[in-house]
């Protein structure tokens, strides 16, 4: 950890020269970036938040300039000579030199400290730990380009750097960009044509509204959220057992996004849906948030495993909702961010009433994690049906007993055993008179009908949820070095000190309470409009998924080891906008989508590319590769196989026996789904932790065991192999060929062009038609393929095109 910091700083200094966002040796010092890491690494262990040896404490400005036990001053702002710190780190006397262990400070480090002291030794607060400020959109020269405030913030920086924004993208490019960005699916050619034909100035905002109203919007954006909350449907470890009804949480997220549930409510439901004023099935399903993580049903160290579960919840909550890597403070104070171990356990205490996923002795999640959602009426109806059947069964039994009494003693014995059924079948009739027998048969008919009725009832609806809590939890201790076996001081639930909020007063739960009432307090605090991180973190995520990366690129880490925003004022503007708009996300989506910034072309401009190759200034729209899911879904749309069915239990894509053979029990926990189910969107794919579908992982579907802030985008030959050889792509190529033939007939030229149109939403070029015809010609003439098979290879080629996989 400590060495890593040196490394990081070294690299920044090494590479800063020549970069647009220059942070070179002549640039003014930045305390957080340049100075604090040195202090943290070499000084804080003895002169930080927890220890103040010699009366020196360097982690805040006030104490750093105070008099030491010796009467000297470690730091005298502006006066290097008088600052004892510099003398102590540079002295040749080894007994005197600080730090007492390890190598002396490097000369550049000393130089940095000197420059910092000389310039006044300012302790600047990290940008994210200062509440957002209201910024008016800046003035710009090219006012015509500004459609909404986003454009003003972006253009101001471009103009400052002497760049122009890229021209607007053409309508077809724009439509495909937005269809994928908003819904994760390509437009159909009919949808696209309608937009191209609409020449009204409001055509674009109209399309944006249509897309935001599409049910596919929730599916696409739910997947982004599911990455953050490490959604999967099994527990990992040896048994990797199923989490029944986890899919309801996935559906809850889709529905919440589609109905534009305010983000603050969305958070409150997930963190405290069981403690709200109005508890609904939805708010209970939301608490599955606590049940999504991995769970060891056979832990070697049960106490430690319990705290690993807490850590999973706390780390995920910190990163997903607050952009804070609070997990770093589990074993010791955070080395860089102002988060202490007490902050960590103070937050953990809010979750103290969260029971484990299941009791390890029973391994059955029913009690702790399955919530019965039946209404009282439904429960009463089910009970009534059961009683009816029981009553009829008693009648039937009474007649049976009449017959049994007439049997031999030996048979009467048998009637008390499990062999009774066989006995009655063989001998009852001859021990009853005709009217008894008729009556018996009539009763049994009624019994069968009653049982059938019970069978036809839908099973009781259960949801994965925080179904049981520990309303009076044990006190939470700070754990020394993170060990569950080394409890230290007791901590009360409290918020990290950097937020400056008072310790909340949480009354003890009533004797008959269901939960401790702490999580709701935490949820209220996170969703308070005053919380300086929640809104910033969320608007940044929306930005990230439209532009390929956030204004803050480390979207789960707004702390000091994260990356500063490229457009800090814009970030604050959007954060306050979200809160002002009742935390509703769709208006924010609309604002972004209708900006000119979003509508820029992705075409490069030499000068800007040379000066700002990573497009920090947003001089163009960054092209991107489709995600694993988009690629899967877009293929189904192109081939006409797409099944838009929403919600419900997930489907199992067919996995090869080689893939199943990696399990210790091949096929265990994996079902079979009919092909139309398999043509549903990939967000409905069943996610088993130890058996993630290779088609997804090949295209960077993330590991599902911890929160994922951003997908990798790798390019590797396994992807080419999957797209050329896998059963999925070959089947889809055949479907595309069939669809093409149905639409274009037998004429090869028409077929070639039609396949392009289905896959790429545009007419084929002359070159493409020639290429397709040439391929089909070679395949039929040189490889003796039938024309329909040759077309299949052309369709496979089309699905493999870069243009199919990348968006402009």
């Amino acid at each position, binding site marked *: 950890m400590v060495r890593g910091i040196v490394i990081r700083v070294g690299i920044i200094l090494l590479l800063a020269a020549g970069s647009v966002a220059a942070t070179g040796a002549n640039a003014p010092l930045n305390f957080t970036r340049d100075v604090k890491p040195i202090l943290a690494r070499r000084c804080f262990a003895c002169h930080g938040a927890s220890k103040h040896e010699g009366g020196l404490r360097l982690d805040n400005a006030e104490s750093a300039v105070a008099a030491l036990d010796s009467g000297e001053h470690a730091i005298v702002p502006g006066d290097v000579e008088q600052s004892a710190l510099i003398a102590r780190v540079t002295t040749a006397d080894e007994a005197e030199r600080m730090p007492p262990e390890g190598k002396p400070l490097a000369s550049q480090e000393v130089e940095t400290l000197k420059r910092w002291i000389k310039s006044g030794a300012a302790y600047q607060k990290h940008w994210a730990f200062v509440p957002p400020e209201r910024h008016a959109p800046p003035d710009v020269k090219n006012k015509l380009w500004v459609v909404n405030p986003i454009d003003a913030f972006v253009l101001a920086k471009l103009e400052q750097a002497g760049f122009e924004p890229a021209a607007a993208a053409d309508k077809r490019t724009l439509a495909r960009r937005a269809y994928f960005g908003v819904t994760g699916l390509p437009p159909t050619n009919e949808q696209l044509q309608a937009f191209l034909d609409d020449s009204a100035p409001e055509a674009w905002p109209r399309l944006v509204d249509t897309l935001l109203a599409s049910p596919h919007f929730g599916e696409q954006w739910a997947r982004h959220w599911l990455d953050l909350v490490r959604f999967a449907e099994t527990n990992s470890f040896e048994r990797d057992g199923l989490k029944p009804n986890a899919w309801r949480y996935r559906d809850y997220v889709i529905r919440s996004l589609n109905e534009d549930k305010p983000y603050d409510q969305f958070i409150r439901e997930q963190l405290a849906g069981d403690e709200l004023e109005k508890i609904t099935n939805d708010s209970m399903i939301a608490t599955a948030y606590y049940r999504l993580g991995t769970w060891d049903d056979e832990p070697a160290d049960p106490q430690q495993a319990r705290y690993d579960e807490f850590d999973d919840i706390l780390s995920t909550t910190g990163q997903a909702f607050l952009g804070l890597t609070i997990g770093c403070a589990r074993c010791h104070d955070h080395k860089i961010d102002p988060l202490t171990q007490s902050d960590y356990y103070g937050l953990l205490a809010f979750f103290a009433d969260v029971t484990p996923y299941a009791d390890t002795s029973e391994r059955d999640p029913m009690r702790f994690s399955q919530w019965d959602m039946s209404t009282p009426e439904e429960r009463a109806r089910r009970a009534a049906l059961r009683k009816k059947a029981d009553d009829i069964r008693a009648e039937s039994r009474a007649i049976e007993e009449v017959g049994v009494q007439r049997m031999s003693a030996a048979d009467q014995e048998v009637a008390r055993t499990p062999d009774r059924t066989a006995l009655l079948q063989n001998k009852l009739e001859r021990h009853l008179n005709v009217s008894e027998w008729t009556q018996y048969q009539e009763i049994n008919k009624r019994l069968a009908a009653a049982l059938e009725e019970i069978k036809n009832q839908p099973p009781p609806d259960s949801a994965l949820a925080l179904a049981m809590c520990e309303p009076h939890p044990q006190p939470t201790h700070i754990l020394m070095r993170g060990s569950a076996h080394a409890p230290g001081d007791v901590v009360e639930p409290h918020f990290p000190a950097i937020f400056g909020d008072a310790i909340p007063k949480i009354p003890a739960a009533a004797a008959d309470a269901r939960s401790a009432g702490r999580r709701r307090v935490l949820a209220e605090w996170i969703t308070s409009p005053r919380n300086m991180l929640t809104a910033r973190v969320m608007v940044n995520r929306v930005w990230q998924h439209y532009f390929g990366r956030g204004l803050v690129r480390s979207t789960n880490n707004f702390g000091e080891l994260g990356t500063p925003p490229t457009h800090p004022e814009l970030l604050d503007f959007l954060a306050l906008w979200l809160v002002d708009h009742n935390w509703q996300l769709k208006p924010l989506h609309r604002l972004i989508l209708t900006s000119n910034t979003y509508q820029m072309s992705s075409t490069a401009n030499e000068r800007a590319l040379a000066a700002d190759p990573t497009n920090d200034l947003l001089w163009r729209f960054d092209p991107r590769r489709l995600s694993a899911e988009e690629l899967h879904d877009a293929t189904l749309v192109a081939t006409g196989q797409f099944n838009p069915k929403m919600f419900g239990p997930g489907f199992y894509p067919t996995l090869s026996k080689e893939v199943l053979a990696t399990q210790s029990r091949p096929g265990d926990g994996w079902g079979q789904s009919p092909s139309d189910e398999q043509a549903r969107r990939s967000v409905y794919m069943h996610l088993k932790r130890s058996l993630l579908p290779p088609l997804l992982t090949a295209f960077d579907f993330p590991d599902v065991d911890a929160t994922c802030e951003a997908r990798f985008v790798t390019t590797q030959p396994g992807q080419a192999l999957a797209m050329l050889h896998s059963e999925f792509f070959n089947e889809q190529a055949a479907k595309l060929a069939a669809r093409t033939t149905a639409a274009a007939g037998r004429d090869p030229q028409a077929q070639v062009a039609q396949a392009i149109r289905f896959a790429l939403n545009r007419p084929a070029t002359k070159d493409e038609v020639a290429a397709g015809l040439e391929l089909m010609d070679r395949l039929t003439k040189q490889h003796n*393929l039938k024309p329909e098979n040759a077309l299949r290879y052309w369709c496979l080629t089309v699905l493999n095109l870069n243009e199919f996989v990348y968006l402009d």
Partner: protein
Amino acid sequence: MSSTKRNRDFCGRTRREFLWEAGGGFGAAALTSLLSLDGFFSRQAAAAAVANPLMPKPSALPAKAKSVIYLFMYGGPSHIDTFDYKPRMVGMDGKTIAVKTFGRGGHKSEGRIVEPRWKFRQRGDCGKWVSDLFPYLGECVDDIAFLHSMTAESPIHGSGLLMMNTGKLQSGSPALGSWVNWGLGSPNDNLPGFVVMLAREGGPINGAKNWSSGYMPASYAGTIFRATGSPINDLSLPAGTTRPMERDVLDTLARSNERHHAARPDQSELAARIATYELSYKMQMHAPEAVDISQETEATKRLYGIDREQTRDFGTRCLLARRLVERGVRFVQLYSGGGHNDDNWDAHGDLVANHSHHAGATDQPIAALLKDLKQRGLLDETLVIWGGEFGRQPTAEYGQGTGRDHNSYGFTMWMAGGGLKGGVSVGATDELGSAAVESPFHVKHVHATVLEQLGLDPNRLAYFYRGLDQKLVGVEPVEPIREIIA
């Protein structure tokens, strides 16, 4: 900053983080090619480099080993029946004694001794005591460094396997093979850098979690390699497609893709993707070639026991392991045993039957691997690891029989080659083998030793994730096992 240093430093961050923080504007080509993995900064990178996240990287320290072959004895072999000689247990069979044990059956404080079931004899110049389960391996002890005081944090298969493979009890972290490839890349771009070969009995408990790349890109995950059929998933042509037909498809594809790229010349990820198709075409030749053991002499096949049913499966995989490291694959992991119960070394019932079976299937092949590597001059640069996720208890699990429960308090692993000493044994368990008592080693020490021998500094090889520099060996510095380093 030297290029070596710079490269090592770079491991402190994900490529993306690194770039974001640095703010862009690099000139160094070597760096750019490393950065291009995620397509984020690929504009100035060579297309071929973009296509290959496993591009070889210089190691931080002088490397003694280039490759690793990890022979995973899944289920947990009993150390006191194999390499940890316990002469004082002789004659104690059936005695009930006080001993603390912890296995799947929970914590116990006494048990019935099951005396080691095999005779031990001294082997090699070093006079190492080896049980008669391993007549062939006994011939190799002068090349082996035995670690008799291994400990792990879990005596349960699921978490135990995860710990041995990833250093953590929970899933979600990269496997040792992922770390090695992340740190060093792989010199052969026609083959995966991290190969896993499973036993015919099936996969191990946890399945793919054991070779997952966790929070690293999936490119660093283990690739399952098979000795028969298509060696890698989706490598073989679909039925009906011939290689010349695929060539025609690829040529058509490349021409279209190049036209598309010409309009977007700055986007080198497009060129990279074009390159991956050629690479995948080459892999279809190279991977089958690597598993084609018909190129080996009959003498070699006999050496590995491929001519005998009992040793054919593991022998074939050991021979493939040698062929893969010859071709530059960095990390090869072979599982001995799969599935559940007696399909692996998990001898809860009949110890004799279980261990006779699994040792019988692996003894000759492993000895052959060591000898073959040595005679080809490859043992010096190939680190071979042998061990399970834990060992077994000195006492019986049940009232009857010889079955032993799991034991993570003390067990044996061994390593050979890769710049390690041979004919040495370090650490010791108590007289019963119930727990490590002399210089106990943790799984982390083995991992640190592997990284060190490959020229990676175990305490600096880091990956920035979740706000922390994550390391295979954890936060606290860990020393490699110096006693066995030559």
